[in-house]
């Protein structure tokens, strides 16, 4: 006991009041330039592969992406100079790569061009990023809006029920030709709510209530509201047949509960509930049931003479890619069909960039998540910690669910690959996530520096 105490004491140096952390904004700028150049390179590669000439819009595309990225960088320099220098470049590179992939798929579907709209949404996303970085001086302000967030999230989640279903799911609202997926925005709001609520009540959650076997149950008064919110959101999503997002919320909820309370029992309960829920839904819901059957045998429809289904086509695309890929513009992932630019965008990356490219994309996401966790670790106050961890977990779970789905690791649930997939709401949401992570990481490193944000 005493020995351990001594170790801790010597390992923890006294808080250095005057030590300054490097800001590393120059590195961020260099990485942004690299990200933009890589995206322009991909754009040119598509043009060269398909038409044997540089695409006419290459310069404009590069300039557009470059200006957006530079503006975001300036905002960070101005208002979050201590922020993690990797977050923004990763966002720019993933967004740029997504635009290249969508532009490339547009060539196969001349009647349905998605890249221009995606560019508009990306601009909006970066604008939101800049706004958040400029206006949100301290992430802790969000704690004041805990209940505004949860109400807004629930409204956004229920809104699409009033609108007609698209492709069997009520996830969209259509306004003036643009379709918005409000559930995407609800993700961030719920993450804020969970973080704020758990930060405020973590002691009550951890130390009060009855104990059943090894699990310390919090009192219903404390746990009740958050379980209710979670149940309502999942219920709504089930009604809307958005099982991917309900899985996402469930995972987010369990991880944050675990981090906030430190009780391993929550993981066990979470896993148990997840298995029970999955089995029940898989048995009862025909839509999900068919997806599970497809997952178990992706080629059954081929043997039945009905041709390849989307998952089989996706696997064929990945297989065609092999180690090094066919090269941008030279694959045939368009065979996947209508969701090729959204849910299945990763298959195009897999076919045309190969395992090498897919691995790089996964590692980019991994790096983004890791930087999120690092921001959480560096942060000292619980809300910031939980917010950063929650947002990073959101990205990690979403990438896992959709990437695992299209590569046949887990049953497929329709979700957008962060930054890559076609879908305005998703791009905007992900820029908001990066903005909040930038904000939390800046605050963490700034406070380490001894200068409080205010």
């Amino acid at each position: 006991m005493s020995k351990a105490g001594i170790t801790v004491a010597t390992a923890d140096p006294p808080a250095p009041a005057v030590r300054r952390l490097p800001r590393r904004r120059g590195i961020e700028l260099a990485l942004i330039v690299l990200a933009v150049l890589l995206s322009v390179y991909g754009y040119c590669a598509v043009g060269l592969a398909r038409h044997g000439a540089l695409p006419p819009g290459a310069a404009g595309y590069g300039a557009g992406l470059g200006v957006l990225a530079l503006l975001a960088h300036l905002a960070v320099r101005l208002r979050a100079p201590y922020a993690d220098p990797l977050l923004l470049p990763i966002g720019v590179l993933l967004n740029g790569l997504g635009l290249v992939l969508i532009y490339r798929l547009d060539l196969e579907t001349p009647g349905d061009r998605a890249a221009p709209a995606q560019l508009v949404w990306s601009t909006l996303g970066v604008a939101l990023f800049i706004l958040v970085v400029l206006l949100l001086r301290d992430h802790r302000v969000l704690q004041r809006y805990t209940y505004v967030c949860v109400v807004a999230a629930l409204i956004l989640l229920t809104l699409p029920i009033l609108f007609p279903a698209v492709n069997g799911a009520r996830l969209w609202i259509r306004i003036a030709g643009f379709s918005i997926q409000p559930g995407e925005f609800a993700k961030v709001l719920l993450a804020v709510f969970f973080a704020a609520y758990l930060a405020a009540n973590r002691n009550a959650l951890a130390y009060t209530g009855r104990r059943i076997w090894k699990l310390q149950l919090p009192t219903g008064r404390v746990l009740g509201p958050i379980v209710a919110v979670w149940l309502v959101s999942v219920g709504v999503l089930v009604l809307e047949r958005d099982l991917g997002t309900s899985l996402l919320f469930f995972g987010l909820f369990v991880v944050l509960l675990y981090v906030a309370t430190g009780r391993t029992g929550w993981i066990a309960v979470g896993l148990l509930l997840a298995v029970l829920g999955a089995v029940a839904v898989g048995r009862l819901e025909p839509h999900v049931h068919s997806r599970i059957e497809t997952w178990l045998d992706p080629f059954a429809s081929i043997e039945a003479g009905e041709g390849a289904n989307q998952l089989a086509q996706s696997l064929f695309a990945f297989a065609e890619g092999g180690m090094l890929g066919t090269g941008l513009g030279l694959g045939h992932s368009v065979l996947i069909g209508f969701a090729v630019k959204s849910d299945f965008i990763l298959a195009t990356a897999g076919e045309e960039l190969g395992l090498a490219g897919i691995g790089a994309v996964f590692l980019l996401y991994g790096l983004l998540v890791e930087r999120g966790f690092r921001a959480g670790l560096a942060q000292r106050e619980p809300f910031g910690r939980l917010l950063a961890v929650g947002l990073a977990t959101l990205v990690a779970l979403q990438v896992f669910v959709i990437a695992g789905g299209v590569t046949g690791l887990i049953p497929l649930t329709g979700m957008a690959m962060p930054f890559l997939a076609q879908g305005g709401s998703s791009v905007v949401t992900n820029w908001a996530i990066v903005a909040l992570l930038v904000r939390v990481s800046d605050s963490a490193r700034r406070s380490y520096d001894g200068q409080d944000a205010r």
Partner: protein
Amino acid sequence: MTRHIRHAGYFCALLLVALLLNAARVQVVQAPSYDRNPGNRRPDITRYEQPRGDILVGGRPVTGSRDTREHLRYERTYTDGPMYAPVTGFASQLYGTTLLENTEDGVLSGADPMLAPFPLWNDFTRARNAGGDVVTTLHPAAQEAAYRGLAGHKGAVAALEPSTGRILALVSAPSYDPQPLSGNGSAAARAWSRLTADKDRPMLNRAVRQTYPPGSTFKVVTAAAALDAGVVTDIEAPTDTPDPYPLPGTRTRLTNASKGCANASVREAFTFSCNTVFAKLGVEVGLADMTATAHAFGFGNGELRVPFPVARSTFDTSLDQAQLALSSIGQYNTRATPLQMAMVAAAVANGGQVRDPYLVERTTRPGGSTLATAGSRAIRQAMYPSTAVRLRAMMRDVVENGTGRHAAIRGAKVGGKTGTAQHGLGNSGTPYAWFVSWAQGDRDLAPRVAVAVVVEDAETDRGHISGGGDAAPIARAVMEAVLKSPAQPSG
């Protein structure tokens, strides 16, 4: 809290590792089996992404490719499709490939690794080579003469260059146009069901895939066997043959279509196609020698490829004396493809040597440089050269004085043999009219062409059906076409 954040982080790292491992499983471990999955259209898309190489006849392509701008981009086109269909076959996006389109598919589609300048580099870059061309041995004028000659009939023509085995003409009638089968739309499906349901079987390649009783044309083989075996030493000497000839061990009496066959010499019997004399000769030669000679000509060989496979021509190896007698005049179970009978005529013309026939002169790279040439072909001595000399004389007699007068060409040496093969239950079917022949121009050192013609349904009334009347003019047209052209350097 820090510890738990780390744990949550490890959990996310675990998810990432799972994704990476699974991606490696799909893209590397499982990839080959996914590539082979019948539901995967990528191999087809890649295959039709570029125009197919061409099949050349007389230096001119008889095939082409059309850019449809569809998913399966290039479709096959054919010039004079029906005329060349028994050679080219079809290349369909729905129904696969046949004949040369099938056997030469690697070169035509560009998949043949020989087409790559640096094979390993190609594997790395995934570049597909442009399709190469296939140069055929066909003689365009001979092919056209055969095609026109058979118009309106059912039948087949095969013509060879005796000294090399090059196939100069290969025609089957009725024929079909392979073009409508090229695509993958409903038009192709309709054409397919129409062609496959047609009772005349236009897609059957009668020249190489159909066997017929060769009838009297088989007497060339019997005569060669008799001369080689020494059963006949003097072709002018009268044979001791009754007319009609009772088949050994039976009460059946074999008769002749022509008169004057009793005790006729072999030469007369050949000229006027006496069944009795040759049936008796076959019995005298014996089963072993008859079989050996027939096999030397190519009967019994089921492995022949030109390069697509040729149906086996048959001469039974277990026969009683009566069956041997009938077999020796090309009846009973003796069956031959038109190509096989062209080989028989070619062997006589070529001093007794049989060369395996071939249809592909060489394959070339897209630029025209040679990829591969026809290799050396199997050569067999079907008969002694002296026997061939005597058979040549007898075959010339047939054309000059006998049943084959319709094949005579002014200013050329032509040898031939007619045949009228009965078939069907109790000879109920329309007899097949046969003619096999060879021709040598007066300035040629050796015969330039050997032909076999079979007409299944000669439209004259039954009594007049004869190889001489129906098949010989077609053979003459083919031979004339070859003799008219300057001699080609032999491949």
